[in-house]
């Protein structure tokens, strides 16, 4: 083990400095307070004057800070920078960005645990139909807090400051940056987000899909799983998830809605790892959650749970269930395009 001289006092003072800034800001605008796990962080990018007005630019400014902190940690850990992805993305909303931010938080949380032994709580998810840029900003802040904690433990003394971003930004930009950060964090984690985590999120998506299918009472909400195919690789899972995402796009299109246009180069897809799959399944979950939020009185999904260790083949099989659900849903929606707005359940002929 490399011997490091602790500089606890300096780190503590840096940390206290940040808190003092926040405290001052709070005193200046007490009416703009928002709770964030007993901590309050205000935007410093000056784009928004109140927390409610926080927009994509504010989030991006904070993400820039996060990226800088991640770079410092990566440098300290001696890890390589992640490669650029050839993922084309557009028309993202705060919801997709939020769920991607959840992934960001989970990865920083795990990184913090690996580096410090401190395990923060799981994020408390906001109701999908209430998600705004502010909530994305909150999660980014929570991720930043984890990174600062790591920095403190790693005794990294360099301090980054949030910079004011010029020009307009969109949730797609936010999504893109978070995606990139997530890929970078994958490089830093000792225990990466493997097939098991993808499996867990796929199960989460299945929960949402079953709730959507509940709109059509005659449907089999959770179809029988396909036969387990041995030897599947993470890239196979990724590509199958892409198929599911395309189905969601078609469902949204049939319903008169637009979702994120997510295009991945085929070569890129063939090289995708579980981390990429995790990012993608997060996007899928976000889209399904968004559709779910459109339904009134729809029961919430059972929630996700860690399945234990799972091979990509298991995950591939489970994605098969999701794909079957989405195919069923697509069939129903094609017959009832107004399924999100009509009252009552549909009985499939």
């Amino acid at each position, binding site marked *: 083990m490399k011997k490091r001289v602790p500089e606890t006092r300096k780190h503590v003072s840096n940390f206290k400095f940040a808190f003092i800034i926040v405290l001052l800001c709070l005193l200046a605008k007490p009416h703009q307070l928002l709770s964030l796990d007993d901590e309050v962080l205000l935007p410093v990018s000056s784009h928004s004057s109140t927390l409610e007005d926080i927009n994509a630019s504010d989030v991006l400014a904070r993400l820039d800070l996060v990226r800088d902190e991640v770079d410092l940690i990566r440098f300290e850990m001696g890890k390589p920078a992640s490669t650029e992805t050839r993922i084309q993305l557009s028309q993202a909303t705060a919801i997709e960005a939020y769920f991607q931010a959840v992934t960001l938080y989970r990865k920083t949380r795990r990184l913090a645990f690996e580096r410090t*032994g401190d*395990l923060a709580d799981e994020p408390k998810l906001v109701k999908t139909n209430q998600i705004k840029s502010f909530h994305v900003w909150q999660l980014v802040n929570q991720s930043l807090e984890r990174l600062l904690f790591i920095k403190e433990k790693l005794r990294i003394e360099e301090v980054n400051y949030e910079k004011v971003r010029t020009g307009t930004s969109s949730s797609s930009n936010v999504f893109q940056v978070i995606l990139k950060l997530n890929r970078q964090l994958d490089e830093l984690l000792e225990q990466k987000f493997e097939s098991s985590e993808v499996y867990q999120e796929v199960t989460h998506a299945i929960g949402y899909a079953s709730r959507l299918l509940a709109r059509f009472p005659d449907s089999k909400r959770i179809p029988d799983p396909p036969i387990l195919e041995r030897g599947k690789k993470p890239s196979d899972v990724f590509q199958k998830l892409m198929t599911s995402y395309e189905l969601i796009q078609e469902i949204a299109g049939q319903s008169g809605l637009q979702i994120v246009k997510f295009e991945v180069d085929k070569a890129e897809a063939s090289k995708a790892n579980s981390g990429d799959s995790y990012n993608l399944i997060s996007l899928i979950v976000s889209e399904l959650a968004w559709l779910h939020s459109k339904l009134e009185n729809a029961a919430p999904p059972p929630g996700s749970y860690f399945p234990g260790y799972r091979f990509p083949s298991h995950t591939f099989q489970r994605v098969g269930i999701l794909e079957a659900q989405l195919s069923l849903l697509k069939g129903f929606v094609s017959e009832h395009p107004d399924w999100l707005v009509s009252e009552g359940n549909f009985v499939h002929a």
Partner: protein
Amino acid sequence: MLKIERGGDLSLTIPDPSSVRGKSLKSKLLWSHLGIALVGVTMLCLALGFAVWLRERALNLVDLRSPAAHASSQALSGLQRSLAAIRGWITVGTPNFKLERINAWQNEIQPAIKSLSEISPKWLDDQDQKRLKKLSELLIELEEWQWWIEDIAHSAGNQPAHEIFSRYVRPIANEILSVCATLINLERKLPRSEKRAILLERFADLKGIVSSAQEKLGDYVTSGNVRDEAELNNSLRLARLRIDQLSKHEHLFTEEQHYFFILLNERLTAYESLAGQIVTIRKSDKWDIAQFWLSEEALPLAARSDNFLTSMSYVQAELMTIDSNLVYEMSNVAITVSIILICGLCFLAISISRRSASQIVKPISSLVKATQYMAQGDLDTNIPVKSDDEIGQLTISFNRMRRTLKEQRAQLEAQKKALDACAVVAETDPHGHITYVNDQFCQLSQFTREELIGKTHKVINSGRHPKEYWIDFWTTIQSGKMWRGEIQNKAKDGTLYWVDSTIVPFLGPDQKPEKYLAIRLPITERKKAETALQKAMAELERSNTELEQFAYVASHDLQEPLRMVASYTQLLANRYGEVLDSTGLEYVEFAIDGAKRMHRLIEDLLSYSRVGTRGKPFRMVKGNEILDNALKNLTVAVKENNASIVRTDLPPIMGDEMQLIRLFQNLIGNAIKFHGNKQPEIHVLCEAQNGDWIISVRDNGIGINPKYKDRIFQIFQRLHTRDEYSGTGIGLAVCKKIVERHGGKIWVDSEPEKGAAFHFTISRMREGFKNDDAALNHHG
């Protein structure tokens, strides 16, 4: 009325059944049968309606209640089975339980719900359908939750406390132990001292405490036992106590020890934090998510589904019991009603049949009895008519027939009596044996009845008739024809007597004579009279012939002296006329005229006598030719008087042509002569009447006083003076004699100044002609 003709000459009229007043027998029979049938059909309809109702209830029971109750029970059973399977899976984790759960859904619950859904449209209560819909939703929800429970039950995330312990606490604990080990190693490398010894002991102690805490935490995660929790807390408290104690000796640490001690302190803090989380989670309801979902989600859903199913099952079972009881009770009622209906139907059928049969048969029985009486000869019993149907009609007809028979029998008896009184009657069998004779027979033949019965008629055969006579007799009657003839028989005493016999054969079904009836009229006296008459006639004929011969001879012989008188008188006038004065001449004229008239009278008398003596045999002559010849002879008179003759065709006539010409000539000549001041218009007409032709000659002349209608036909009778009308008065007498010679008669219809119509008859001779028309055509 219907009319049945037999053989064209016998007709029988019978009443038309449609003319029956009131209800006909057919109608009665029809109504009788229809009545029974109607009662039967009504009862059958009632029974059928009842059967249909029972069938509906039974089908309802079979198709609706029973399957519904069965499906509800099946779903309930499947539900319990699935819950047992999921519990088994959670507890044991054997894949068989997963299979068991799937089977419960696929083989019991889902088919049962499908069955209920198929039946549900027949349910009358909307609440049942709503209940089923809600049940279906609950079961789908429950199935999904069971899937989730099954999926999570044996996953790492099922017990978050265990997950944290495994994924996060264990690495930290290992790191703490590792750091402790590092600190101990570092401490051991330092020089020994009492304080150092204490530090070493404290580090080792800390390591042991952490190790113990880890063990206790692991136990607690598994068991959730309070004692384990207490021991864990005790270990953690000791660990923190050791850290605090070590902190007091921090000045003794080397820099490296200090680094690791800080790290140890941080990791222990994290450990304490995670252990706290584990305890919190372990104490919460969600420490086992599968169990939590089972109790919080699945079981309530199952309980609600169970309630629905139990309710439905109970309701259906109740309804089934009610229906079943109803069907059972109604079946009993149906059997009872059916028996009553059958008995009632039998009773009604018997009653109606007896009544109808009695109504129909009673008069027939009366008729049968009456027929029997009639067969016994009683024709006096009258059958009362009690109905106006065919039986009534039959009774009326029967009574009428009886009366007719009675009348006919009386008539027959009277006729027989009359016949017996005037005729000799006998009956024989086909072989000629006498079976019956009347008193007349016995009286005439002088045999007793006993002597005759069984004998043939040979006993009275006179032997006067030739053999051929009898052959013709037997041939005729044996061929079924009636024979009539005159037979001379011999009485017992040998006297002969004549009978006019009529033998009538009575034919049997084989058209052969069964018996013969002989009706004979005694004609012995008549035969005697005929013989006498024939003798008288022959004498008369001889007398007439002689008389006519005398008249002819006299007339002929008178001609010669008369011609001599006339000739010499004429010669006297011629030669000696100059010597005779006017008176002498006048006398000569008178003599000549008298001789001439005498000559004419003799001529006429001669011709009159010739009608009888010089007549020619009759032959068929054409009437028109006769008339033509007559008119030809009258040509001068017709022209002189400018007479108009209108004539019709006359038929062929069997007669003496010359005499017939004379007949027409005389009649038409008279009509011309007695025309008076009028232009004569004469019509010759002919018409058929009975067996004669009536030929008429009608004129528009002076007419005849009816009182002279017979006188005019007498010889030499005149109604006018010779100055008024010439003639000898013998013409019509000749006409009468000619007509009578031809078997006819002549008469006149006339009144003075109104013309006269002379009619005479000539027998219509058919032989050689098919009919009168043909005869006329032939003539024409």
